[in-house]
């Protein structure tokens, strides 16, 4: 070849003025670092983030004013039935976002960068899950505010309302493990979109928007026992108070809350190890 060869070999007199860390980052530092980055990635994309919120509000409006008139809900106002349902389904829609996010991390090499660092594997996936839980919480806060603006009212004590929120946040945390796993398995963001196939039936064949009694029998069997219905009904029961809850939903809040917690625990026990394993060496 024609050019002179400018190959450089080490000059022992020069060193890059960078200290080498004495010990690697701990699990907490790692999880918080990853979580912070993931939250920033979402909220610093205001177009996408705000659009998501606006879309949620729009759906709420459509259900309330377009479908609401045709749906009867055992003597409570539809808006009081709908808003807790909507908050609960937010968990699943946030989950879809986290699947896509995890697939993006994989595709864009962020996972590889993290996994090449001397940090605990479990902290990497935990950071992702914590971030997605925070994002879901922001989403459900916005939905709640919009709900109140649209006329949702509750006379439940503050303690019950806080329990409802806590349950939704915990459910978001539990479901995210599954969604992160699915996102990584999908491998790329486009494929991760396909997880909607799972989310839509779970969302609509539930008590989120309509009472399950209005569905055909075979569908009711699924709708009244699936996890989202438990979470949605628990949230609803907490806001209605147990007297109305038993009348409208058939059971008090504790009934649904216990079943919700069971589902959440099941999701964590099954999906957290599977997701964590995906962060090991292939």
């Amino acid at each position, binding site marked *: *070849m*024609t050019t002179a*060869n*400018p*190959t*450089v*070999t*080490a*000059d*022992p007199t*020069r*060193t*890059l*003025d*960078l*200290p*080498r*860390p*004495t*010990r*690697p*980052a701990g699990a907490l*530092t*790692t999880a918080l*670092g990853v979580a*912070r*980055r993931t939250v*920033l*990635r*979402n909220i*610093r*994309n205001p177009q996408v983030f705000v659009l998501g919120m606006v879309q949620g509000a729009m759906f709420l409006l459509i259900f309330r004013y377009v479908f609401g008139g045709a749906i009867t809900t055992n003597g409570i106002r539809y808006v009081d039935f709908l808003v807790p349902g909507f908050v609960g389904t937010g968990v699943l829609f946030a989950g879809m976002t986290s699947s896509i996010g995890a697939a993006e991390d994989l*595709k*864009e*090499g*962020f996972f*590889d*960068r*993290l*996994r*090449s*660092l*001397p*940090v605990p594997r479990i902290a990497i996936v935990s950071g992702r899950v914590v971030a997605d839980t925070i994002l879901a919480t922001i989403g459900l806060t916005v939905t709640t505010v919009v709900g109140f603006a649209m006329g949702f009212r509750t006379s439940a004590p503050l303690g019950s309302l806080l329990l409802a929120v806590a349950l939704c946040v915990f459910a978001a945390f539990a479901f995210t493990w599954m969604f992160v796993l699915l996102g990584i398995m999908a491998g790329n963001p486009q494929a991760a979109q396909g997880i909607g196939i799972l989310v839509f039936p779970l969302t609509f064949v539930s008590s989120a928007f309509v009472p399950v009694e209005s569905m055909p029998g075979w569908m009711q069997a699924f709708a009244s026992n699936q996890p989202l219905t438990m979470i949605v009904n628990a949230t609803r029961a907490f806001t209605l108070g147990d007297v109305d809850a038993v009348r409208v939903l058939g059971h008090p809040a504790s009934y649904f809350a216990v079943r919700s917690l069971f589902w959440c625990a099941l999701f964590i026990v099954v999906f957290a190890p599977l997701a964590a394993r995906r962060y090991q*060496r*292939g």
Partner: protein
Amino acid sequence: MPPILEARGLTKRFKTTQALAGLDLTADRGQVTAILGPNGAGKTTFIRMVATLLLPDEGTLTVAGIDAIKEPDKVRRAIGLAGQSAAVEGAMSGRENLVLVGRLFGHDTRQAKASAEVVLDLLDLTESADRLVRTYSGGMRRKLDLGASLVGAPELLLLDEPTTGLDPRSRNDLWDAIRSLVAAGTDVLLTTQYLDEADQLAARIAIIDQGKVIAEGTPDELKSKAGNDVVEVHVADASELDRAIAALAPLGCERPRVDRPTRSIAVPVERGSAQLLEAVRLLDGLNLAVSDIGLRRATLDEVFLALTGRPAESEPDPEADGSATTDKRRRSRRAAA
């Protein structure tokens, strides 16, 4: 001191694809080692193995004397990875990105900030440090990604195709940055599809194909083996092609390669411009009309052809599918004696 990297008999199979097929490589300290190979040769697979992201099916691998299979955590403390896609966060500033990775490498906040500063300065990114990375150009993102792999001051940097997709200016920029790293005492293992990149940066080059090292040495050694300059002639009239081949063949250090559809003859030569002049004189003496003649450096394709008898299939020929191209060139090699 043990070599910075020693790989013996690495194999890796993905379902039906044998990505690595017994790869052996030793990289010494204090230099850039380049792994040169076409798409699908196994470069990324190997880099990911060194980065402890992937386990080999068979073989041994040590990094700075540490067994990468048994002690991945120790290896992670010795390496920095800049993968094939720039893994920096667009929604964070350049500085925030570096501080984050610095923290993950184990620095405390103060030290992570200080290290970020040094790296920004080294890579000439200080001015853009507080801008969100999504406003960066492709070249700047690449540089920042290189910087992120650097903030923990690793012994060995792993760069997977660091300049693929960059314009020539950004490429030169990045080359400068990589050179200054090595000058400052960091070892670098990089992969590339470009012969000139390996030639520009590396003290040693390993050419890999189908998951194996097929040639290894200094750039000069490899060039003398395979990558001679090429006198390329396009004759104006197809009927004169054979006459031109016969005239030029004695000039070359290897048999000329002929591409009949484009009426072009490529003659590998050892003494560059002198032989270009000679070729011009020869053809002129024969009164042979030439539409184009020039001297160029060997391409990776030609190095491959010389080493393997078949072209690198990295860039598909737009005018023919891969297999047709291979056949055509094989035939022309035989034809051109």
